[in-house]
């Protein structure tokens, strides 16, 4: 009984300890941003590895998700003779929820895990320590460029995912199932609002998700136990924690933007 309570207390303290370290880490990261302005080339290189290299999986997933939405929406709406609203269904689901959320989950799996593994391995091979020995701040040189690049890449990836998804829905609905093209677009335009749906949905949500996904990824790498087992654990934690936090935050953001 006492031992159980003690274990619970230890787990709670451990958790808060990590949260505190993660917050301090974020503050140091933000403090290093000023130094980054002098070397924008570092960000470009990271944008390539987290952004450009994530494009294929984002584009393919977006296409298939949009096509599935088109098929499912059609199958359900055809009973009511309401297939002209298919454009609305596809666009609103993608813009408000699926685009930013799925893009963030794919990002965590594709880029976040790689970030964690890379930084963790740098720690294991004592590259970070070596940098400090040479008076190079790893926050300015390693962590901040990766974090900033990820924060920039995430909204762009979510936008691409959403746009391709809508095109996929269009392809299935109009080309394959014979929904009227004019109705598809005009019903969509009548229902989707620029600020309330596109900006709040895709842009704000994915910016928030990009922030937490990259924060978790970089911190887990930095905080990894410097063994090969520790890196694998940290990489797993990046994907699991990002997924949980993104889904929970998505609920909160949806309640704020679309709840009333």
């Amino acid at each position, binding site marked *: 009984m006492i031992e159980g309570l003690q274990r619970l207390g230890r787990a709670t303290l451990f958790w808060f300890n990590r949260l505190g370290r993660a917050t301090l880490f974020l503050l140091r990261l933000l403090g290093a941003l000023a130094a980054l302005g002098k070397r924008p080339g570092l960000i470009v290189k990271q*944008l390539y590895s987290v952004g450009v290299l994530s*494009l294929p999986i984002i584009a393919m997933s977006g296409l298939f998700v949009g096509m599935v939405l088109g098929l499912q929406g059609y199958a359900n709406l055809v009973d009511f003779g309401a297939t002209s609203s298919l454009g609305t269904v596809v666009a609103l689901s993608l*813009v408000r929820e699926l685009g930013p959320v799925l893009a963030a989950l794919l990002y965590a799996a594709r880029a976040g895990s790689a970030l964690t593994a890379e930084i963790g391995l740098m720690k294991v091979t004592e590259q970070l320590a070596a940098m400090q020995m040479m008076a190079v701040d790893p926050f300015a040189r390693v962590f901040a460029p990766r974090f900033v690049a990820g924060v920039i890449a995430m909204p762009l990836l979510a936008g691409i995912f959403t746009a391709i998804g809508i095109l996929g829905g269009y392809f299935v609905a109009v080309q394959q199932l014979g929904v009227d093209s004019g109705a598809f677009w005009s019903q969509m335009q009548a229902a989707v*609002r*620029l600020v309330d749906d596109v900006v709040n949905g895709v842009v704000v949500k994915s910016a928030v998700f990009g922030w937490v996904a990259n924060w978790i990824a970089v911190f887990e790498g930095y905080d990894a136990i410097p063994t090969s087992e520790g890196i694998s654990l940290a990489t797993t934690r990046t994907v699991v924690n990002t997924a949980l936090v993104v889904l929970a935050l998505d609920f909160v953001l949806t309640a704020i933007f679309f709840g009333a």
Partner: protein
Amino acid sequence: MGTLKKLELAVGVFVVLGLAAFFMLAMKVSNIADLGEDKGYKITARFENVGGLKVRAPVTLGGVRIGRVVGIDLDARSYEAVVTLSIEPKYDRLPTDSSASILTSGVLGEQYVGLEPGGMDEYLKNGGSLKLTQSALVLEKLIGRMVTNAASGDKPPAKTP
């Protein structure tokens, strides 16, 4: 330096693609024309009951959308709903005796305000109001009336002297 250039090019393409996606979402998916909303002139119409009419619902004349609903309020004195309509400036020749009714598009569709032009030579201006209105059809009331009609129809008609 060749690889760095290629890398920068790829990042440039990525950024352009992302911005193009947002451009498409803004132009093609959402109705960007709705942003400049206060260009139209405002007129009000009083209804006994607006039913399920919502702000942003379309205002049509002859089936063509000419504006939209920008406000729904209750006049606390007369207990009438005051609906503010924003009409696009190019449709500035609506006669003052035009009438407004709240209609439904399709069986389960959204409600909108349909205008019928009148015959006067004077035209509605900003701040004008529509006098002739027809309220929304409330299904419960309609059924209620049908039921009472059917019930009274069973009885022999009242004798008229």
